[in-house]
């Protein structure tokens, strides 16, 4: 591809670069760092901060490098006295109206303006006039605004429009009167709104819950995984002592790019609310405080006589799942279940995961949403669909007529609308069609034939070809794909879980699964292993405290089949013990075969059994793809969406005060528009 390469010089160093790059990108390739505020590689180019000035030979004036396309033979100078003077001038103008409140600013210590002022700022101001002051704006319960600090880079405006897909932010006025605001100061309604905090190069937009909590240099960083949806966004958990103070994204171009959802970013206050910190035993219909010795003794006696069933919740990591499976194998087969929502699957991995790599969604030209609301189930996937939509992809929707932040063509409410005439026409024209089957239908399908028909349908319309498989199954739970891979499910795959004969089991062990409170277990002895007291714990006979995902190491497989590790951030709250160690103790006393003595042994045993899981960050290959049968026949079922409220979808976010505020101010409060009407 020598056609696309051109020769340029950066500070007299000759390099060959792609001709479609900008001067700034070329300088970065050459190893020169260019200061910038408004430029961001995930957003469109604005060129309004003027900080990235460079000198280009033969150009009469300094040039903003982020907006300048490359030309053959261009000679760029980034370190001359002239460039330095130019940048210093820009910095002086930026600082004219920027307050000197770094000591009380939350951005202090990780502020782009602060850092770059170290290189290009003056120690004194030559500005004698009054500084301007700007009223703070309401942007909702998550984003705190101190607008006097704003330098008008418009990253937040571009993010809201281009990434979040909610054009609600804008810059009003001009010159000295320019102000960033939301329309009529309403709350931002995006599920990704917290990302504007990371984007803001100064302290104008900061986190409301984190306000005045800590300085960046006091925090301990732990790499972890978002377990509040199935995307497996990479996060960084910042803690001080035994408390998590904030959650921010880690860049992973394959999964979440640089974004995370507001739920994982802000629900950490829920980690410490309503925690189960000690074992409880039910006496006289009331849970009373117990201790490990007593509760495990009762449980052991029950385990000797009663036939157990284990339920696996949405936040259970692979190692725990493996320990549970191993423990339960002492009682025979088919007694562990993670599909408590009746999620229908077939044998093979490709029938329950997102088969298209997530960063490939944007290349599709036709997307069919079948019983899924990606906006509230998996906001990151919704962003990828929005990207495809912006690349002129057409989006169809089957199920309920949900409102998304892009236009969809609504077909109808049942699976049979897959045979809609318009849709078939579009499918035949499309070069890269993609289908997403969501839990709203998957949990309702009662017949293997329907699932197989979906595969045949996908095959017929070239959604599945030899090279790629764009038939995707989407569920919102972080644990699901991993638990299914290690086989934590009963063998009758399409049989609805609620059909299990209730008298088959006498003892239910729930690992964070709220399904234990279902009436079908009313006559069973119930044991709840979990971290938050909710319906599941309330109705149980024994409650045992276990650590949260940030309090232990664990592996999670994301929706596309990518194993990733969430690391321990601090010690468990109260006397919580990891599930595997509880099971280990029980099996020792029951003389079961349960070898691992340490977590590392457990993990290596898991990887020995399932070597595909040990390759972190790589997508697992499908060994036996689902075979294609010729007939296409869809059963009639009504869509029922698994998540109805983005901010409160699990026990942790239900206990978060921040999430409660979001529900109140973003969902429940009708907008100013409706109020006045």
């Amino acid at each position: 591809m020598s056609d696309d390469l051109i020769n340029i010089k950066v500070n007299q160093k000759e390099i060959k670069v792609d001709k479609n790059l900008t001067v700034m990108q070329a300088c970065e390739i050459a190893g020169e760092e260019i200061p910038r505020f408004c430029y961001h590689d995930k957003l469109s180019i604005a060129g309004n901060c003027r900080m990235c000035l460079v000198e280009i030979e033969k150009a009469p004036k300094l040039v903003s490098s982020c907006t300048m396309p490359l030309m053959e033979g261009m000679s760029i100078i980034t370190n001359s006295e002239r460039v330095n003077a130019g940048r210093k001038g820009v910095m002086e103008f930026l600082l004219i109206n920027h307050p000197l409140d770094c000591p009380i600013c939350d951005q202090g210590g990780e502020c782009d303006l602060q850092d770059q002022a170290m290189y290009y700022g003056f120690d004194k101001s030559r500005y004698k006039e009054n500084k301007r002051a700007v009223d703070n704006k309401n942007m909702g319960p998550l984003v705190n605004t101190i607008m006097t600090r704003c330098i008008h880079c418009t990253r937040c405006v571009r993010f809201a429009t281009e990434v979040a897909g909610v054009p609600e932010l804008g810059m009003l006025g001009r010159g000295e009167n320019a102000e960033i605001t939301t329309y009529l100061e309403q709350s931002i309604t995006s599920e990704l709104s917290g990302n504007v905090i990371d984007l803001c190069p100064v302290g104008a937009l900061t986190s409301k819950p984190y306000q005045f909590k800590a300085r960046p240099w006091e925090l301990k960083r732990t790499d972890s995984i978002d377990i509040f949806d199935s995307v497996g966004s990479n996060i960084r958990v910042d803690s001080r002592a035994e408390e998590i103070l904030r959650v921010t994204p880690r860049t992973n171009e394959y999964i979440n790019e640089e974004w995370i959802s507001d739920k994982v970013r802000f629900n950490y206050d829920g980690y410490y609310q309503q925690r189960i910190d000690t074992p409880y035993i039910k006496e006289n219909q009331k849970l009373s405080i117990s201790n490990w010795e007593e509760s495990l003794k009762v449980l052991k006696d029950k385990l000797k006589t009663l036939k157990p069933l284990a339920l696996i919740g949405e936040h259970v990591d692979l190692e725990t799942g493996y320990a549970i499976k191993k423990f339960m194998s002492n009682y025979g087969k088919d007694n562990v279940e993670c599909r408590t929502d009746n999620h229908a699957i077939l044998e093979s991995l490709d029938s329950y995961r997102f088969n298209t790599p997530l960063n490939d969604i944007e290349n599709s030209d036709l997307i069919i949403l079948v019983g899924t609301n990606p906006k509230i189930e998996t906001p990151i996937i919704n962003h990828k669909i929005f990207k495809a939509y912006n690349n002129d992809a057409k989006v169809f929707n089957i199920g309920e007529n949900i409102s998304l932040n892009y236009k969809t063509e609504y077909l109808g409410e049942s699976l049979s609308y897959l045979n809609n005439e318009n849709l078939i026409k579009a499918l035949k024209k499309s070069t890269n069609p993609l289908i997403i089957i969501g839990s709203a239908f998957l949990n309702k399908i009662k017949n293997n034939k329907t699932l197989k028909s979906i595969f045949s349908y996908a095959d017929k319309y070239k959604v599945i070809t030899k090279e790629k498989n764009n038939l995707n199954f989407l569920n919102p739970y972080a644990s699901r794909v991993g638990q299914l891979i290690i086989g934590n499910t009963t063998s009758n795959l399409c049989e609805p879980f609620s059909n299990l004969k209730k008298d088959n089991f006498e003892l239910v062990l729930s690992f964070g699964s709220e399904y234990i409170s279902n009436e079908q277990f009313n006559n069973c002895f119930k044991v709840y292993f979990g971290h938050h007291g909710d319906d599941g714990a309330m109705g149980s006979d024994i409650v045992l405290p276990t650590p949260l995902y940030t309090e232990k190491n664990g592996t999670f497989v994301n929706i596309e089949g990518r194993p990733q590790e969430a690391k321990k951030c601090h010690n468990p709250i109260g006397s919580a013990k990891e599930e595997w160690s509880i099971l280990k103790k029980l099996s020792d006393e029951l003389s079961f075969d349960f070898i691992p003595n340490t977590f590392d042994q457990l993990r290596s045993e898991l990887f020995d059994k399932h070597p595909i899981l040990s390759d972190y960050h790589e997508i697992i290959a499908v060994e036996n793809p689902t075979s294609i049968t010729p007939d296409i026949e869809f059963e009639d079922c009504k869509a029922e969406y698994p998540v109805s409220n983005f901010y409160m979808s699990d026990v942790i976010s239900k206990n978060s005060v921040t999430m409660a505020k979001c529900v109140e101010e973003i969902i429940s409060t009708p907008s100013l528009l409706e109020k006045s009407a």
Partner: protein
Amino acid sequence: MSSNHPGLSNNFSRSGEKFSWSKDNLRSIKNIISKYPKGREQSAVMPLLYLAQEQNNNWISIECIETIAETLNMPKIRVTEVASFYSMYNTRPVGENLVQICRTSPCWLRGSNKITKTICKETKCEINDTSDDNKFTVVEVECLGACSNGPMIQINNDFFEDLDEESTKKIIDNIKEGKPNVIGSQKGRRSSENA
């Protein structure tokens, strides 16, 4: 210019009344939009803001913004951005006659300060204020492009040029009494011919 200027404030308010296009305006809108390429209809936001201001007693209310956003199928904040950027879109109600006094150098050299004083005295209102009878709103503006005929003012859509204190007073008096005014030069000059 202070941000109290009705065209330079970023705070919009509601009129409390529904705003819907008049029949004439609907026809003009169709014509205006047809001038832009397909898919670029949003470019018509400025002429539509002008029409809305004309129809809505010379100011842009939140209702106007919402109607325009709906007409052009664009986000409301984008319309707000444009309306707040340009000083000739008024963001709050103004009097029946919006008196814009040019204060840029050529007019100022020819005595625009005196004109300003006269107008404030005659209309009984300060700069950026509306008179009690809601007849006048007086604002100072930068160059209106009639430099050779300065000092000059603009009242609603009409230019009044070659002013002095006396002719200014007469113009205001005529408006108060509902009498017609001579538009353009008050010295009888044609266009900007040599004086």
